Structures are given as structure tokens and as C-alpha cells.
């Protein structure tokens, strides 16, 4: 009966749930879904991670390549992120070239990483003007059930944490490159950026409700996929606040969102550290 009601009167059905202060999957407004994280699951990649936030699943693989740095920035390496939304992740996407939405998500993810300054591109340079690492970060969404940016950032950061750079010997005279895959050093990560998504729901015009870690259905009910409020933290500083359209926010909502994002950041940091420690002891 409830399923029929949901199909015929989707807005009223959603409203009724919000009125009794609960969400469709039984969570409270400020509750996030369980996070499952696994690192180094893809052996052929240089570093990898799989993350599941509720149903949202993202696989991240990192591949290393050597290249000549740009002439304008001879002491910087390259960090290239790519978010893929294949047709398999949701019925909304068609096979073919990357959709506009995938490009937007990719831009948000790469901006968060860039702004948080968690990776110093100078660390990726081997010999200025001659040789530098190119870090290709490919994130593939297997199942898109909302809060995609959060999942992408977790997967990416967990992969970075396990990334080991092989040591390279470069002969300046003969220009010979020798890669020692047995001698590897950790890549320096400054802080641990975490993104938190909120859906903004206008309940009876006046009341604004923030739904933490929304599912795909909740995102759609709150003004479409692109209109989440995304707050990112790194080392206690904000490194990106995005909100594009959707419901409008008052000052109080803003304060609440910042407070919740701070709490969520601590929780996610614990998950990532616990996962990495678990892997460390198993070795």
C-alpha cells in the first residue's frame, strides 16, 4: 500500500515522513549511512580503495606514470582526477562520453583536493624540468545512491594514504631513467579532507530541513542531483563549500550544517584510520 502511495503522491508521501521527523530508510535527519571501506583491493593498480556509503559504491584506482613537467611550472608534478558514471550505476546515465553531471562531480572533487592542499605537487617532482610523477586517479561509481562526492573523496584519500612512490634514479648526463619498484616511499599527505553532503528540503515553505548524507531519492525530492550542500573540511579549516540552487538556506541552517559537517568529518577520519591500521597489522 505504501509503495502505491509513494508512486501516486510522491511529494505528499515524502512530506508525511518528514512531518514525523524520520526519513524513508528510518534514519534521523542528521544521521549518516554506514561506511564500509577496503583498501588495496585492486592488485594491478598502484593504490586502490573501495568505499560503500549505504548503497553508494565507488571504486578508486591510482596509476603512476612518468612525464616531463610543464615548462611554466618546472617543479610541479601532476594530479589528474577522473570520475566516471557508467550506465551501470543508475538508470539516469547512458553509455557514451562523460555526461555533464559526471564532469561537474569531477570538477568538484578535484577542486576539493586542490583547495585542501593535502598533496603538495612539489613532492611529485623528481628532477625539476626533467622528470615528475603523473598520478592518475580514476574513480568509478558502481552504484549511485546519493552523496557521490562524499564517497569519491573517501575513496580517493584512502587510496592516497596507501600510495607508495617507487624511487627513481635519473642520470642527468645520459638521461637514463631507472625505476626501483622494490624501494618505495610513502606519499606525504597533509591532513585528511572529508566532504559532507546535505540535501536541503523546504518543508511547508517556511521550515528548512537538512538531510545529512541523502540517498538518490532524497536528492531528487530536494531539487535534483546537483543541488546538494557540500561542506569540506581539512585539518579544522574549511576547504570548500558548494551549494548550487535548490532550497534556500538561512543563517541558522548554515550554522547547523557547519556543526554537523564537523562531527561527520571526525567520524569519517576514524573510519579511514581504523581501516588503514587494520591493513597495517595484517601484513
Amino acid at each position, binding site marked *: 500500500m505504501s509503495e502505491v502511495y509513494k508512486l501516486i503522491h510522491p511529494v505528499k508521501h515524502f512530506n508525511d515522513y518528514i512531518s514525523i521527523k524520520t526519513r524513508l530508510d528510518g534514519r534521523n535527519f542528521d544521521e549518516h549511512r554506514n561506511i564500509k571501506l577496503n583498501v588495496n583491493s585492486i592488485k594491478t593498480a598502484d593504490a586502490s580503495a573501495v568505499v560503500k556509503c549505504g548503497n553508494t559504491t565507488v571504486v578508486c584506482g591510482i596509476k603512476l606514470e612518468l612525464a616531463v613537467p610543464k615548462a611554466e611550472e618546472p617543479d610541479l608534478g601532476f594530479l589528474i582526477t577522473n570520475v566516471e558514471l557508467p550506465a551501470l550505476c543508475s538508470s539516469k546515465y547512458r553509455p557514451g562520453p562523460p555526461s555533464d553531471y559526471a564532469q561537474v562531480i569531477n570538477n568538484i572533487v578535484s577542486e576539493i583536493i586542490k583547495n585542501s592542499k593535502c598533496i603538495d605537487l612539489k613532492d611529485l617532482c623528481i628532477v625539476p624540468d626533467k622528470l615528475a610523477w603523473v598520478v592518475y586517479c580514476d574513480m568509478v561509481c558502481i552504484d549511485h545512491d546519493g552523496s557521490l562526492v562524499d564517497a569519491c573523496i573517501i575513496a580517493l584519500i584512502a587510496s592516497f594514504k596507501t600510495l607508495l612512490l617507487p624511487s627513481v634514479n635519473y642520470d642527468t648526463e645520459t638521461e637514463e631513467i631507472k625505476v626501483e619498484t622494490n624501494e618505495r616511499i610513502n606519499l606525504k599527505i597533509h591532513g585528511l579532507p572529508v566532504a559532507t553532503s546535505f540535501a536541503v528540503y523546504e518543508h511547508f515553505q517556511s521550515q528548512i530541513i537538512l538531510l545529512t548524507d541523502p540517498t538518490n531519492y532524497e536528492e531528487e525530492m530536494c531539487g535534483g542531483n546537483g543541488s546538494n550542500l557540500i561542506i569540506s573540511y581539512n585539518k579544522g579549516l574549511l576547504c570548500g563549500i558548494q551549494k*548550487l540552487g535548490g532550497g534556500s538556506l538561512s543563517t541558522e541552517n548554515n550554522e547547523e550544517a557547519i556543526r554537523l559537517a564537523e562531527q561527520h568529518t571526525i567520524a569519517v577520519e576514524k573510519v579511514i584510520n581504523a581501516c588503514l591500521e587494520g591493513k597495517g597489522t595484517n601484513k
Partner: protein
Amino acid sequence: MVTDMKDVQDFKLKPMKCEFNFLSKSDGSAILSQGDTVSLVSVNGPLDIKMTSQRIDKSTLEVLFSNKNGKPSVENRYKENIVKQTCEAAILGSLYPRTGINVTIQELEDYGGFLACTLNCTCLALLNSGVSMRNVFAAVSCAVDNQGNVILDPTHAQLQTSTATMTFVFDSRDKSLITCFTDGCFSQDAYREALERSRSASDLVFAFYRDIIRKYCNVIG
């Protein structure tokens, strides 16, 4: 920090100049300069679009952004998305089901705060085209310099030394936040201060809209 702001600040924005109907063939167009930053926006619609992108409950908004060199890039998609999402919250799309509204943006000069200028220009072009809107919106940009001070509507020189930039878009009715995007690292206090100062400064933009409308349409002004 918010309380003692009023005596410190005399909310000043860069001088704004605007011309309506800059393009003769579009349904609505506006060119806006904020200081040295200039943006040109044309709006066409509601018009016929192909079946696959039609929506039965509201109009489809299509935004095209072209920068100075004309090359398409991922960054352009992101800027288009910002304008699209912001306009969708403001336009009464349900009045024009199965149609499309086209917004075309041309970058002319970028000396800082370009997206804020573009969003304001888009709002003026929409007003000029006569598309029904729920409310108008005003965009204000802010920068945080290396001492942590918030600068309202920064100039090109100020942007070179700033550590973060933020852009806020407010609606005209209760001045609540519609859109917000940031660049760089900043503290919570800087964010709060920037938000409140931009909110107050948005009044100036709304007053400017009113002046322009009064000049061009003496019936509704």
C-alpha cells in the same frame, strides 16, 4: 565579529554599469560591467526543443558558457551548472512545460569576480526577456587575504594576494542563500563574516536592479 561590523564597514561594491537589449535578435539580453569585469548574456525562450529533453512538468533550462578563447572545457561545464542550478531556483518553470529556455553567456573581460558578474547579468537578462520568476537574485563575491581579513568585491590586485575567494547568491525575498561556491582554504569565522557582509551588500545589487528597471520600463518601475 558580526556585531561590531557595522561601524567598520561601509558596504561598497565596484561600480556597476548595465545596458539592456544589447543584442537585437534575442528575446532578452544584458551586458553588465562590475569594475573592469564585463559579461554579456542573452536569453531566448520559452522555445521549442527536441522531444528527448522536454519535461512534462516544467521548462528545460539550457545554459551555454563560452569563454574568451572559445575552447570547451570541464571548467565551463561547472560554470554552466552553477548558472543553471541558480536560475532554476528562480524561474517559474512550471508555467512553461515542454519548452526550453536558452541562456548564452559570453565572457568579455575577467578581472576578478567574473562568476558573480555573470550571475547578476543573467538575472538582468532574464528580467529583460520577460520570463516569469519567483524572485530575483544577486551575487556578491568576497576574498580572504593572507592576514585573514575579509575583502568585499575584491579587485584584480587584491585577488593576487588572497588565500580564498567565495561567491554567494541571495534571493530578493528573505535574503536566504541560494548558491554558494568557494575556492581555497579558510576558517569558519572568515566564512561567517564573508556571508553576513555579502548578505548586507546584496542590497546594493537589488537597488541597482531597481534603478535599471526603472530606466528601461517606466510602467513597472
